[in-house]
């Protein structure tokens, strides 16, 4: 089932939580809402669920306008961060509850609960109460409850936040696998970009109630449309430097007081056409430690990440995060040369925060 959201707005008093949001989610698509706390992603999800009534805008499920429909009339399943399992019911009753409310016969309930439980691998836990289950098991029960009524739309509200790191990794794979198998249109709210990048077909990045971008994970990472996305997506985060761009004999060049680098990206002319200073972005992995380079700085901090060392380099007043080979054994206080990959630079208008290469 496709979901079409047009100009969706939600105000709480004078506070605008969601500001004219437009989204078009295809049938069977896995969409993640990504953004920092308080960006309006959960509010949007709750409006889709029918818990909140939108202040303005239209929501369509398929061809049906659902603005005025109650949650129970929308045929959706939802998994909460807190799982929201009913503590006074067994796992079985929890999963069967949506079916009971639909008035499905006991026999049919039993069959369907068993089927879902087998898919989730919790068949042996059905007579336990939520308090007797581990976090991961509770999560599976919650997922089973959301799936059992065969919903047209599956909503996830940061479902993995309360799990430990290892379990989170496992559940991530399982949810993605399940969603793909069942082909249920899904919306997944998270503030964890790794979750969004690894699971979603497309990611809606939100900031302060507004949609910043709605793109595939690759698109967001490779060609961030706004400064916010560039800074938010990717870990360690992208470096930003204010530079002037100009054309000299060797080609386009970006300079400021501390550094000077050539660049050879597509749509160079758009960048060069821009009047005034621009913000240049470069990801740490696109910086190479090269003692032959002109850009030299002092290492301020070294954080071993295992495969790489993350080094914090001061080039005059400019700070740069770069990844280096641990074999180089760079120490704080060392002077190193840095070379930027000229094809991987991003340029933004510091006034509008929009990308100059889009």
């Amino acid at each position, binding site marked *: 089932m496709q979901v079409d959201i047009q100009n969706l707005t939600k105000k709480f008093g004078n506070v605008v939580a969601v500001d004219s949001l437009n989204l078009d989610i295809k049938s069977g698509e896995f969409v993640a809402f990504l953004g920092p706390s308080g960006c309006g992603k959960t509010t949007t999800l709750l409006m889709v*669920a029918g818990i909140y009534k939108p202040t303005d805008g239209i929501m369509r499920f398929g061809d049906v306008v659902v603005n005025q429909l109650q949650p129970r009339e929308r045929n959706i*399943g939802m998994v*909460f*961060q807190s799982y*929201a399992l*009913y503590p006074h019911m067994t796992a079985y009753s929890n999963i069967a509850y*949506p079916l009971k*409310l639909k008035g499905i016969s006991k026999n049919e309930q039993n069959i369907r609960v068993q089927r879902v439980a087998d898919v989730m691998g919790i068949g042996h836990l059905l007579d336990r109460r939520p*308090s007797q289950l581990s976090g991961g098991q509770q999560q599976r029960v919650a997922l089973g409850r959301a799936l059992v009524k065969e919903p047209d739309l599956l909503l996830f*509200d940061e479902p993995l936040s309360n799990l430990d790191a290892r379990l989170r990794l496992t559940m991530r794979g399982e949810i993605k696998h399940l969603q793909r198998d069942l082909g249920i249109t899904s919306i997944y709210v998270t503030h964890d970009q790794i979750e969004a990048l690894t699971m979603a077909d497309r990611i809606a990045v939100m900031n302060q109630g507004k949609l910043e971008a709605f793109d595939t994970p690759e698109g967001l990472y490779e060609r961030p449309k706004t400064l916010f996305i560039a800074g938010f997506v990717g870990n360690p985060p992208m470096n930003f430097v204010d530079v002037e761009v100009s054309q000299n004999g060797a080609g386009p060049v970006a300079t400021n007081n501390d550094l000077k680098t050539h660049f050879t990206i597509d749509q160079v002319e758009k960048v060069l056409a821009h009047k005034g200073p621009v913000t240049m972005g470069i990801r740490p992995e696109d910086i190479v430690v090269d003692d032959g380079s002109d850009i030299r700085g002092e290492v301020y901090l070294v954080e071993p990440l295992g495969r790489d060392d993350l080094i914090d380099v001061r080039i005059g007043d400019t700070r740069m995060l770069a990844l280096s080979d641990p074999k180089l054994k760079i120490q704080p206080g060392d002077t190193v040369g840095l070379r930027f990959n000229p094809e991987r630079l991003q340029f933004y208008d510091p006034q509008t925060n929009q990308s100059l290469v889009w």
Partner: protein
Amino acid sequence: MTVTDPTMVAGPRKAPPLALGTALWRLLRDIVLLAVAMLGVSWVFREILANATSAVNVEESFTTVIADTMIFTLPFALVIVTALRSRSLLKNRRGLIIGITMLVALAVQTISVGQQALTQTGAYGTQTSVQFTTEQADEGVLVTAIEAGGAAEQAGILVGDVITAIRRDVVDKAALDTAILQSDDGAVLRFRLLRDGEEQQIPVTVTSISGVNTTSIYMGYVALFVTAILALAIPFGWIPYVLLISFLMPLFLGYAWLIIATFSQRTEGLLPVDTTGNFGGLTLDNWSFLSGQMGARNQLDIWGVTLNSAMIAVVMTVIVLLVASMAGYALSRMNFPGRRGFLSMTLILHSFPAVTLLIPIFIVLQNIGHIPLIGDLFGFNTIGGVALIMVAFELPLGIWLMKGFFDGISWDMERSAMIDGATRWRTFFEIILPQIRPGLLALGIFSFLGGWNTYLIPATFMVGTRTSNLPVLIRDLTGEMQPVNWNQVAAVGLYQLIPILLLFVFAQEYLLNIYAGGTKGSS
């Protein structure tokens, strides 16, 4: 590697044992401090505060009681503190600990006895006597020796006389001794005695002599040594329980008396006694009110009274639970104009004492009484009216309590239920209410007890010839028009307690059970 001291390696480091001198010095310091403190408090209460409050002119004033208690408990406190402190200060020097404690017990009692001897108080006080010694014989009390020049000799009593009675009251040795001790100096006791098989009556003038009550001195030593041994022997972990039990003892004894009294004709302390004062006298007479007989004179509809009590309690519980849970839910979950005002108003209402509202409530009930049909159920002088008032008094607390419980349930729970397909009502009844079951039970029990035990409202608004409920009945039993049969009052009180006890026996598991949540983060 050298072998390290095991105490340095394993476990948390303990403080090194104190040097013997330091330990003894601290012990001495603590004992002296305690003694000075208790004597000081006693002195302050007796000398200063007693004078300050003397205007009140109470014979056994509060202040003297405290002062006396301090003096009485001082030896015991000293012995206990010595035992406990030396155990913690001297650690493993067991012989020394026992020695010091016993020494202190001995010293304290000796000092106390010496002080009594000097001031001629306590065991050394004067007592009334007729100056002879006796023993119990078959026919009566046999006089075995007579003090030369004493009261008995002056009265003409001879060795070998057998005392049978004082005036017409037959006595044994114990009763005789008591009678002598309780007489005033100079009082005349008329002994009826047998001399050579002949009955005679001889008046004896009781005189006051200064005597030593050796028994009480020995008992003092024994009590202190027993205390010392107990204080030396109990594990430190038990001390809180020992304290708890000693503080709760009056309560336990009170309930013990209540139960014993209901089955006895009279009680002497906790012992059931019959009308002549001998052990025994167990009876079910006090419970005769269950058959509708109140004493010899009054008829009583006990079941009607009980039913009234039960009806007030049940009606109140049901209505309070229903209204408070719904109102609490609305206040916790919904936003509507006047919500804050409503909340603060209920809080203010809760703090109104019922007494201040008696007259306005009377007017309200009177007016309700004028409404046809409803007036017969909820007007003045009806059970319904009383229940209505009680509900009104209980609701503010109930609403706040319920709101608190609802606040503790996460919004996600409701959202989840509504997405699962439940209506708001179904969510409330099937998902939310079951989760606050402990709260409902607590409020239900509060309400039930409140309704069951209520006195003021039924006593005020159910008047005339109709008896209202059990508390009012108990009040009627202690009225001024007739001698009060306290054992019967106790029986009715115990009868009133039965449902409460049952309630607690069966519900305490629910009350103590902290409901384990299925929500992550709630425990």
